[in-house]
């Protein structure tokens, strides 16, 4: 409530969005969709909006982008075409970051120099990745979808492990040796830490390695429709020694930027269905603003523990569905 009072535009968006869904529920005669438990089209988009709102808050605080939650869950538990899921996943990943860019920059939490250092590799990587995804889907069909599910299942396991290895101990990473390249580029910064009520200084390290890793992150983000924030946080935090909160904010800005190129191959392939993506986008925008304001006051490491559990469970389902599809077998209990 306090947040919406300080941000009239957020109030306007919330009022418009809720009014839109109330109007549609009350005045539009929408038929029940086949095989969706009697839910109408309007019900489905309203439920999607609510889910997206909560996904956005969790993802902004964890610094992963909503795509890393949305895409695996949809690929694991629904029969929606994988290209449609991945294009919507990029919208989900992108819009929470886009709208959070304003508050993050205003508060000085996101480091603009790091953003422009990583922007090009992520943009190019994301674009190439999504071109590869569309091409694979068009040439291999359902076999390609099964391969994508297995690969994503394995990737999620790796992401969960990265989060476990880089836990709370990296909130303010220490690095003894100074980087010459980072010094030359003046990659040192300071931000105000609300929880400590003092400024925190940091120096950046391993610039070259990080740039290469960000290209790889962009590629996988575009290919799987995850965005790239899930891995940008570890790259910034563990490789470049950037404090966790700055890493989370910077990754939000970076992944939104990177996905802005990665989405176009999907749009060109007709995989972005407006009415499906719209409630997810709106939920991400409103949840993203709320999440960005919550971030400065809480410890991000706590939320990431919840995320790790979800990543493990979803990866199991993805692996089982991928193996079932590829070898035409049925795996019980999963």
């Amino acid at each position, binding site marked *: 409530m306090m947040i919406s009072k300080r941000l009239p535009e957020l109030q306007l968006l919330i009022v418009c969005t809720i009014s839109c869904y109330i109007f549609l529920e009350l005045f539009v005669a929408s038929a029940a969709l086949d095989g969706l438990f009697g839910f109408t089209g309007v019900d489905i988009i309203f439920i999607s909006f609510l889910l997206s709102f909560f996904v956005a808050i969790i993802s902004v605080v964890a610094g992963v982008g909503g795509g890393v939650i949305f895409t695996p869950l949809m690929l694991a538990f629904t029969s929606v075409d994988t290209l449609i899921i991945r294009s919507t996943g990029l919208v989900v990943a992108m819009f929470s970051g886009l709208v959070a860019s*304003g508050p993050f920059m205003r508060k000085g939490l996101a480091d603009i*120099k790091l953003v422009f250092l990583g922007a090009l590799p992520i943009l190019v990587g994301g674009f190439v990745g999504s071109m590869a995804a569309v091409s694979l889907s068009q040439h291999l069909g359902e076999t390609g979808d099964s391969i994508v599910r297995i690969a994503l299942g394995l990737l999620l396991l790796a992401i969960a492990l990265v989060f476990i290895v880089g836990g709370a101990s990296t909130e303010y990473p220490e690095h003894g040796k100074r980087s010459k390249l980072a010094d030359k580029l003046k990659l040192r910064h300071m931000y105000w830490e609300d929880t400590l009520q003092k400024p925190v200084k940091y120096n950046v390290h391993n610039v070259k390695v990080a740039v290469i890793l960000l290209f790889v992150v962009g590629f996988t983000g575009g290919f799987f429709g995850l965005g790239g924030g899930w891995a940008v946080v570890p790259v910034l935090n563990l490789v470049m020694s950037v404090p966790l909160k700055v890493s989370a904010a910077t990754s939000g800005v970076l992944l939104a930027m990177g996905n802005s190129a990665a989405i176009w191959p999907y749009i060109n392939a007709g995989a972005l269905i407006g009415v499906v993506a719209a409630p997810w986008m709106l939920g991400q925008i409103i949840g993203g603003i709320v999440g960005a304001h919550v971030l400065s006051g809480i410890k991000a490491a706590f939320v990431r523990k919840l995320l790790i559990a979800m990543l493990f469970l979803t990866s199991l389902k993805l692996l089982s569905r991928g193996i079932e599809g590829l070898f035409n077998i049925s795996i019980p209990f999963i």
Partner: protein
Amino acid sequence: MNKQKKPPIPISGVVYGEIIYWCTCISALVVIFGTIRSFLEVDSKIPVEYLLNAVFEGRSVESVWAGSALQKVPDALTYLAILSSGEAVTVAGISFGILSVGPAIFFSAAFMWRSKNEFFAVTALLSGTFAVVAPFVFFLI
């Protein structure tokens, strides 16, 4: 108690963030309008009930569009031709939010240059150019 001073915030970052923030808010309003229009329009070339049914049935992208009145996968020109339809307005709203990244980077790059961070101004210019060119690559292939 010794009260510490908050560090200055780079203007180039604030410029980037504000442009993106407000463009995203505008795109959200367009998307809301597009959603309402999708459900209200009659005799639409892309009926919303059909789209939702087809998507949640698990049909492929090609099959979803082949079954609509468009009978083919839409590209940017198709959407422009049916811009009054709810689906096209919704996609246009989403695209506006996405496209705002390019100009935001360019404005931020100008402030980056003024603050004597030439290297990052150049990387920003390159990134902005890529973000602006990416949607048009498919017209060249």
